[in-house]
Every structure is written in structure tokens, then in C-alpha cells.
């Protein structure tokens, strides 16, 4: 157990209503220094909304959210950038904070895109852009990292490497991470706390606790249970978007 000083952000019975429809309701969770909290759940279950509530993007929420730090790095799930802006990767890295050259180079090297530094943001592929987004979020050495599907569109080997990087960052910077991911395997092996959402918190706890939960099984199916309970394994298969497994 940790003391209150380690808490970076705390949601208390938080929810968001839009046009009389609840996007997500009654979420309580906290992210602490050096811990990785993962949100899982089907599409439309309110994962991104919860992340945005934690970040303070929504103003009119139910319940309460308290952020104890201003050093935040965010990788949004969707980002639409207007190409009427001439913007190179290097400019983008300094979007919310001025950084020196070494810091930028280091972050871009960590995510493997240092060679794209002077390229125009509009010329990057989806996976490359995702790596730049992650580099930007970690470069400012934040206390709190909020990563909304940070490896989408990244190739398979890159995906594993990036998740390892995220784990390493969490240890080295002892920052707290709020992670949203669909890849149960990779996520579970590094996560301290799992929150399973489906419009509300359907269960939460350590990966093992959640795996045993009946609601989780009902939501994700038996196979997902198998994944969680045997998450130390060799990578001999790949996952489809639905969470099914295909042998290589």
C-alpha cells in the first residue's frame, strides 16, 4: 500500500453525461507514482472518456476528479491535425513545452524515429506518427502519462518493444501511467492494476483478480480468461482485434 503523497490523479465516482446519455458513470480509480493502471473494456465502454476525465479535458462532469500534478504527458487515441500548419516532427515535440535538442533526440531515439526529426508531420505513416506521439509525451519527463492505445498501427515487433519501453519509463521516471489497451497479453504482464469498464466499472484489481472475475469472463469470453491467467508465455501467435488468437 502507498501513502497519499504518491497519488497523481484520483477519480471519485466520476462520470460524464452528454445529451442525456451517460458515456461513463461511477468510475473511481487512482494512479500512483511508479504504477501502471490499465483500462480495458469493449468499444464504447468509456475508456477514452475516463482518460479524458482524468486529464481534466471535460469541465462538466459528475463526481470529482483531482489532479495532483501539472506535469502530464498525453497520447490521445485519435488526433486530427490540420495540414494547413507547416509542422515538422521537431516543432511538434516542443508543442506544449520547450525542450533542448538532447532531450528531443533522446525521446525520438527511444521510440525509434530519430531519423524522422526533420520530416513534415503530414508525411508520416500511421505507425510512425504514433511513435512520435509517444516520444513527445515521454520527452517532457512527466509525472503522469496517459496513453490511449499508444501502439495502434505500430508493427508487431515494434508493439512489444514499445510496451517494454513504457514499462521501463514507468520504472525509471517513477511516473504513474494510465494506459488504455486492447492487447491483453502485453498489458497484463506489466500492469499493476486493471480496471475493466463497460459504461461503468465492472470489476477492478490486480490482473489475476480481474481474470477470475465472472463479469470479466462474460465480457471478454473464456479465451481472454485463459490469456490473463497464463500471461507469461512465448509469442507463438497473434491477436485479432476481437481478442481472438491466431497461431502463427
Amino acid at each position: 500500500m502507498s501513502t497519499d503523497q504518491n497519488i497523481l490523479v484520483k477519480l471519485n465516482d466520476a462520470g460524464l453525461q452528454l445529451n442525456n446519455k451517460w458515456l461513463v458513470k461511477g468510475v473511481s480509480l487512482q494512479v500512483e507514482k511508479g504504477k501502471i493502471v490499465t483500462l480495458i473494456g469493449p468499444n464504447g465502454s468509456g475508456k477514452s472518456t475516463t482518460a479524458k476525465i482524468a486529464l481534466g479535458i471535460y469541465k462538466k462532469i459528475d463526481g470529482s476528479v483531482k489532479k495532483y500534478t501539472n506535469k502530464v504527458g498525453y497520447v490521445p487515441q485519435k488526433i486530427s491535425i490540420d495540414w494547413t500548419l507547416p509542422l515538422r516532427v521537431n516543432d511538434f515535440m516542443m508543442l506544449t513545452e520547450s525542450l533542448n535538442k538532447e532531450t528531443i533526440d533522446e525521446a525520438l531515439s527511444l521510440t525509434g524515429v530519430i531519423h524522422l526529426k526533420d520530416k513534415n508531420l503530414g508525411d508520416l505513416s500511421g505507425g510512425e506518427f504514433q511513435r512520435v506521439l509517444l516520444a513527445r509525451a515521454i520527452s517532457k519527463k512527466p509525472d503522469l502519462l496517459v496513453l490511449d492505445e499508444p501502439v495502434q498501427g505500430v508493427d508487431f515487433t515494434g508493439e512489444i518493444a514499445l510496451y517494454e519501453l513504457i514499462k521501463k519509463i514507468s520504472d525509471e521516471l517513477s511516473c504513474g501511467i494510465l494506459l488504455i489497451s486492447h492487447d491483453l497479453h502485453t498489458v497484463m504482464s506489466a500492469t499493476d492494476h486493471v480496471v475493466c469498464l463497460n459504461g461503468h466499472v465492472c470489476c477492478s484489481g490486480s490482473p489475476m483478480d480481474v481474470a477470475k472475475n465472472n463479469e470479466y469472463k462474460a465480457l471478454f469470453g473464456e479465451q481472454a480468461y485463459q490469456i490473463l491467467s497464463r500471461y507469461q508465455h512465448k509469442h507463438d501467435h497473434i491477436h485479432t482485434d476481437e481478442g481472438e488468437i491466431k497461431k502463427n
Partner: protein
Amino acid sequence: MFDDFFIRALVAGIGVAFVTGPLGCFVIWRRLSYFGDTLAHSALLGVTLAFTMEFNIAISVFVISSMIALILIQLQKKTNLPGDALLGLLAHSSLAVGLVVIGFLTFIRFDIMGLLFGDILAVSVNDLLIIWIGGAFILLTLKFIWKPLFASTVNYELAEAEGLNPDRAKAIFTILMAAIIAISIKMVGLLLITGMLIIPAAMARNLSSSPQGMVIYSIIGGLLSVIIGLLTSLEFNTSSGPSIITAALLLFILSLFKIKQSIKLKN
């Protein structure tokens, strides 16, 4: 040295170009061209008000334009009309009301052409002070809000999430828009102010690969437009505003050749 009307116009125009350069980039990036137009149209109302109450034109225009911006924000919240319809509504109705008011003010002689298209003969030493002091103030404020404004232009949620307070930056920027219209109305005229904001910045977009580069090219484009435009205006006795904007257009057309080249290089 400010005795000569042409020198005064030149100094005024240069001051205006330094401010419209960076502001124009944001107008393009944030897609505010029609917003700028609306504020400029409402400026006529400000001018008539200044004449009736014998008040300073720049301050009166600034106040009216800011009010129109506030009304727009309220209408956006309270109605279901699309943004462009609201902008058109406010632009044309404020222009119309302004013209009607002028019709009533028969005791004052109005140079309507000068108001709409700019009049270099009308620039006084007082106007120079307003342009340079007001302009410096606008630029300093823009420098102060640059980071949050630019970050939220790229992506609002990133800026908000990482604690930059983009809403405040946006509100301040709206006030700066009203201010630039107020100080440049005598130079370019209210129908062409948005052109002074957009065209040099559009030219700059064709030449630059970074935001800072675009701002610098935009300022240079504005300065060249003012100098070429005013010389033409002096030589051929044309209105200052249209002459400056035509010069800006020529520079924009020249910049298109640069794009053609870089597209060729890419292929």
C-alpha cells in the same frame, strides 16, 4: 520627418504589416477568415459611433468589434445555426446598420470610400502612435499566449490535458483580432483588412516548412505589399487599401511557382 503624408502612410503601413503577419498566420491556421471579415464589417458601426460621440475611432472600433465577437460566442451557444450563417448574419447586419446610421448623420461629411478602402491622406501623427503602440502591445500579448494558442491550434485536447489553458488563449486572441482591425482600418479600409491578414500569410504558407518560418515570411510579404502598394497608390492616385492588397496578391501568385518546384522535386 512625419510632415510628409506619404512618409506617415509608409510608417503606419509598416507598423500594420508587422502585426498582421503573425496574426494572419493564426487566422489561416485556425480557419478564422470569415470571423475576421465579420469583425471588420462591424467596424463601420464603430466608426459612425466615434463620429457621433466625437470619440477616438480606433478605440471605438475596438470596443464595437469586441462586442460583436462576444455576441457571436453567445449566439453560437444559444442557437442551432451553423457558424458561417451566424458570421454572415452579424457581418452584413452590422455593416447595414452602420450605413443606415451614416445616412442619418447628414451634418457630418463622410468619406465612405476612404472608410471602406483606406485613405493614406487620412493618416495623422496621432494614428501613427496608435498603430505603433497598439501594435507593440498586440505583438507582446501574442508572444505571451503563443504556446497555448499554437498548441491548441494543433490539438485542443493535448493543450488542455497538458495544462496550457487554451480557452483563455482563444479569448485573448479574439480581443487581439478586434485590436488589429481597430488600428489598421485607416490604412487598408474595413472591406480589405481580412485580405491584409490572409494573403501575405497564404503566400508564406507556400514558402515555409515551419510555423516560425511562416510567420517571418508573412511579415516580409506584408511589408513588401505595403511598400509596393503605397508607391503605386502615390504614383497612380489609387486607393491605398486596394493597391496594397493587389501587391499582396501578386506576391502570392509568385509564391505559387515555389510550390510547383517543390512538388516537382518530390516526384
